């Protein structure tokens, strides 16, 4: 598709007739130069760089403001805006201490809930989806295509439409308000996209590899673990990051299926804080950053996989 970096070109250029006959610089090198020149032109236009800087500022200053606020003493936060910090810097960690361990908020407990909710909700759907994706990619069975299209189509179902009946069912099974309801729901909701993405990655693996293993007498289980899994690590990583961010940052699923204090993750508690105590900015700011720190670290350290997953997910379709 369009966003793939189009390898055929890279192979085609060396056989460019112009290059074979010699006499002028290789086509590709020249094109790269042209692009570099274009980039220089672009930067030299003050309007363009001005606009870029403006966008960059608009996208960072709101976060910066809250970040600075989270380290200011309560009196300062109430007295004036965060930009005054730079004139008279006074730093404190008290907000973080209070929001994490203070009896009113005790976010530390919710951090743990977020961890407990997220880890199984990442592992379980990926494992199930890997197996299903394998079946759709490499096992011949009747109705395979129709089933796969059906699974693909389920991606568009808004999860809202499933919630009331699911909740009724959980209540009937006595699971409502436990971690199980949250794990189960997150796992199910992740499946359509996970199966679709992993299926795409699996189809990219050369069939000859699978065939060779089959000729050697390997069954599907062995092919899955010995041949495919090692090659799928980047794909799994890509989806794992997706799912991690999605679950960690989710509000709706947790609000509906696990909003009790025992189970509720950070997002639910923060949304509650924002609703009840909208003026306590020393708690809201530090609380927001407590909730953000984990996904931001994961995101920045694994950004490459994330981008790859993003490209595969939205453009290959």
């Amino acid at each position, binding site marked *: 598709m369009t966003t793939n970096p189009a390898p055929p070109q890279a192979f085609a250029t060396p056989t460019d007739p112009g290059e074979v006959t010699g006499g002028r610089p290789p086509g590709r090198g020249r094109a790269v130069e042209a692009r570099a020149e274009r980039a220089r032109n672009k*930067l030299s236009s003050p309007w363009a760089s001005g606009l870029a800087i403006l*966008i960059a500022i608009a996208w960072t200053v709101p976060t910066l403001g809250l970040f600075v606020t989270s380290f200011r003493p309560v009196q300062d936060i109430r007295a004036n805006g965060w930009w005054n910090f730079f004139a008279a810097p006074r730093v404190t960690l008290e907000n973080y201490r209070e929001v994490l361990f203070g009896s009113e908020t005790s976010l530390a407990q919710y951090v743990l809930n977020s961890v407990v909710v997220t880890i199984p909700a990442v592992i379980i759907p990926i494992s199930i*989806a890997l197996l*299903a994706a394998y079946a759709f990619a490499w096992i011949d069975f009747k109705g395979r295509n129709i089933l796969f299209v059906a699974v693909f189509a389920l991606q568009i179902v808004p999860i809202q439409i499933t919630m009331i009946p699911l909740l009724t069912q959980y209540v009937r099974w006595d699971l409502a308000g436990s971690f199980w309801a949250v794990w189960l729901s997150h796992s199910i909701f992740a499946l359509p996209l996970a199966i679709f993405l992993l299926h795409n990655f699996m189809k990219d693996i050369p069939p000859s590899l699978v065939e060779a293993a089959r000729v050697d007498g390997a069954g599907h289980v062995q092919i899955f673990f010995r041949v495919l899994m090692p090659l799928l690590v980047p794909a799994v990583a890509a989806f794992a990051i997706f799912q991690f961010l999605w679950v960690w940052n989710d509000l709706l699923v947790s609000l509906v299926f696990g909003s009790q204090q025992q189970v509720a993750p950070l997002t639910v508690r923060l949304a509650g804080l924002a609703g009840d105590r909208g003026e306590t900015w020393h708690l809201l700011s530090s609380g927001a950053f407590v*909730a*953000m720190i984990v996904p931001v670290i994961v995101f920045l350290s694994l950004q490459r996989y994330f981008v790859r997953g993003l490209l595969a997910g939205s453009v290959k379709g």
Partner: protein
Amino acid sequence: MENIRLWVEYFWEQISGFLLDAETPVHKLLLMLVAIVLFVVVMGAILLAVDRPKRVPNWLVTAAFAGPALLALAFGLVYPALRTAYQSFFNRNGQEFVGLDNYVTAFVQPEFQVVLRNTALWVLLVPTLATFFGLVYAVLVDRTRFEKAAKALIFLPMAISLVGASIIWRFVYEFRDAARAQTGLANQILVGLGLEPYQFLVNAPWNNVFLIAVLIWIQAGFAMTILSAAIKAIPDDIVEAARLDGLKGVQMFRYITVPSIRPALVVVLTTIAMTTLKVFDIVRTMTGGNFGTSVVANEFYSQSFVQGNGGMGAALAVILFLIVIPVVIYNVRQLRLSEEIR
């Protein structure tokens, strides 16, 4: 006999207590481990059972691989969706059949009309503006020295929760009357310009636009990533030919960049539109749906879980689903078209 029965009951209580009521940190972590191990053991057992190349029939192997996923989807998506569609024809407690009343209410009652209008506003503004900013930024920083860092700045909002983003922006919009020092950046700018401070989140209908800005702020990073990759895939010879023809700056953008990445643009627009329809976190965290800011996704939550009006909630969920469909059809058709061209 009686003794054994008591013992069984006692153990069952202990086990279900352990599984369902985790209160201490250690208990929670232990429960998490148990869940993972349990899952791995069950899946492992299923796979082990079919791991005999010749003796196990093909359909059983297929069932072992695809079965868990299909079962989960049937239980958790297909059945509940149908059930909700059915419920949407019943009254608030699901006892009395009311036909299309819930849908009629959703389209006729003024307060629901506001909800529909807001949803339309979100779906129009978020995809177009997020894509616009993402595209412009991707073009501006493409192949510059700071490309990586510059992109990370726009990209980062994608990593944080919508709740976190809402708190960030509520702080920007914070209002205090003119007599006091402003603490919100937006009002500080207004005051700096000599204007009166403004209640960004309260004054309808413009407060909707200020909520929408938050999602644009988040989604622009997604648009930028996809479009930036598409821009890099434009063949060099096309760009160079256009340059030799004398195309520059805005013209290049208009006649070369945009047409070349059209398929990616469509995907980005439709993907963001679908995301936008389902987002309720922002409205919920910033205004709680008050001051005429509710959208269908938020109204669904309020009706179902706050007001206890199951029938209305179900109808709104179905409406949400129905609005998504045209977007998806458009997306698929465009993809088909672009594949035919190639």
